[in-house]
């Protein structure tokens, strides 16, 4: 796995101490060595290092102190090594910007402690930046749930993200990738629901020229492209059963055969999968393979819908409003409606609504500026609800079309399914068989939709 390789600079004049340190650090990354200040300065000017290990006494006593600011200026983590016991040397080293001071004699465990601390701090800055600029939340339970991300980097277990559409699953997948890998390592995102069933296999495994009609050139699949990085399988619940079986080996053994090829390809990737469906239920009703479910599970992260963390809505509105170049102000009523709306499309929907509001020609946003479906649903805030007209030649109303524009077709279709199941079920005295007859859907589809509706209602 192309895990983040650390670059070390060891600045030590004593041959034995330098050899010890270089040998120990080689297990953790690439090591360059300097025997004196001059060599250190040259290397610092030519290369980029993650950590510098500086012996305090080099060609002259305390020469290492002068190197600390140079190391800091290069944004390198400075660790001072010294046998000096005097507090003033330690204090001076910290004053000049060293991050850690290791007193000699020290052992391997002390080195490991420094490396662990460095890794945690580097991760923290990525995490801090992520939660400050990309994933705004003050919801305690979500923050607690997301703390598992800290552990994700320590093992190679797969990550499984679960949450309704628009809750930021792709953002979290990218964050995990950024924590583990370097920028240049591949992040391969495949939304299984967007690729037609008959093309999905070729998309995942790749193919050789002539493997099937139309395969005029060989093409690498997503498994191969993700080598040394992350493979993000989004909407994995929509993967056809036959393909679910085929990807087991690729996930398990990190090896596979492209279509039409007899040559095994190896690919070392970190698997992140996501779904908005209830996979446990799908396993129970036989529409998702149990063995695949247990392989994609590892670190499970649940992302709640926006209404489950309502206190984040004003924060997110403020956050997205601040992103636009043009500033607009929301009236009190608008804020009230937005805070109370059900946000079925979650953060994605909220972001798009804010973008629409920002594009209005006037600066003060009133209730009339809100999309019709939001005004309609938040009827407590307006006295008169407009009757939405139908689009000529279509079964869609203007309000429904507005809903699709904001939330996307998938969310609209889900809402139609949920409402249809609920209404027809009630009309048929809550008799499942009669309801299925009217709806013309399977038993499992009925329960899947009902379950989704229950989840939405409990929110």
């Amino acid at each position, binding site marked *: 796995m192309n895990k983040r390789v650390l670059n070390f600079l060891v600045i030590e004049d*004593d*041959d*034995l*101490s330098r*050899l*010890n*340190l270089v*040998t*120990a650090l080689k297990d953790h990354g690439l090591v360059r060595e300097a025997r004196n200040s001059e060599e250190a300065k040259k290397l610092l000017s030519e290369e980029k290092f993650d950590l510098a290990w500086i012996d305090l*006494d080099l060609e002259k*006593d305390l020469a290492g102190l002068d190197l600390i600011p140079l190391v800091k200026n290069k944004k390198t983590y400075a660790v001072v090594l*010294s*046998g*000096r*016991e*005097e507090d003033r040397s330690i204090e001076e080293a910290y004053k000049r910007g060293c991050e850690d001071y290791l*007193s*000699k*004699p*020290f*052992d*391997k465990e002390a080195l490991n402690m420094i490396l662990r601390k460095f890794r945690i701090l580097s991760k923290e800055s990525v995490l801090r930046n992520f939660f400050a600029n990309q994933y705004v939340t003050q919801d305690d339970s979500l923050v607690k749930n997301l703390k598992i991300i800290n552990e994700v980097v320590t093992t190679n277990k797969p990550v499984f993200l679960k949450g309704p559409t628009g809750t930021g699953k792709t953002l979290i997948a990218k964050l995990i990738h950024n924590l583990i890998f370097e920028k240049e390592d591949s992040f391969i995102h495949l939304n299984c629901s967007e690729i037609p069933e008959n093309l999905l296999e070729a998309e995942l495994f790749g193919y050789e020229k002539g493997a099937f009609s139309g395969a005029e050139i060989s093409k690498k699949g997503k498994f191969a492209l993700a080598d040394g990085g992350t493979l993000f399988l989004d909407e994995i619940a929509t993967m056809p059963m036959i393909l679910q079986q085929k990807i087991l080996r690729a996930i398990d053994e990190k090896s596979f055969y492209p279509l039409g090829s007899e040559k095994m390809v190896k690919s070392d990737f970190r698997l992140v999968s996501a779904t908005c469906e209830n996979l446990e239920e799908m396993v129970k009703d036989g529409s998702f393979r149990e063995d695949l479910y247990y392989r994609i599970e590892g670190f499970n992260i649940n992302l709640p819908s926006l209404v489950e963390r309502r206190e984040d809505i004003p924060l997110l509105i403020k956050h997205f409003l601040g992103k636009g170049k043009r500033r607009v102000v929301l009236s009190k009523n608008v804020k009230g409606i937005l805070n109370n709306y059900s946000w079925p499309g979650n953060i994605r929907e909220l972001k798009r609504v804010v973008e629409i509001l920002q594009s209005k020609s006037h600066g003060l946003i009133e209730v009339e500026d809100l999309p019709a479906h939001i005004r309609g649903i938040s009827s407590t805030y307006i006295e008169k609800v407009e009757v939405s007209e139908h689009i000529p030649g279509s079964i869609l109303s203007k309000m429904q079309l507005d809903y699709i524009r904001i939330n996307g077709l998938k969310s609209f279709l889900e809402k139609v399914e949920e409402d249809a199941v609920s209404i027809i079920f009630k009309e048929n005295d809550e008799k499942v068989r009669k309801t299925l007859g009217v709806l013309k859907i399977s038993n499992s589809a009925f329960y899947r939709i009902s379950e989704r509706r229950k989840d939405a209602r409990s929110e």
Partner: protein
Amino acid sequence: MQDQNKVIHDINSSISAISQSISLISDNWKNNPEIVEKILPLVLEKTESLEEQWEQAKNIIKNKG
């Protein structure tokens, strides 16, 4: 006082180097004898320096009475 600090520093450094070397020799003597071959003469040299440093320390302690 300056001498004393220097001697303590040198002894600490030598003990550190020798103990780390022994740990490395223990980890590598089977699978990576080349590194052991490189380290051993330096360890012997360092042990001699440590003996000298310890003599200096003893003198400082004696003089302090």
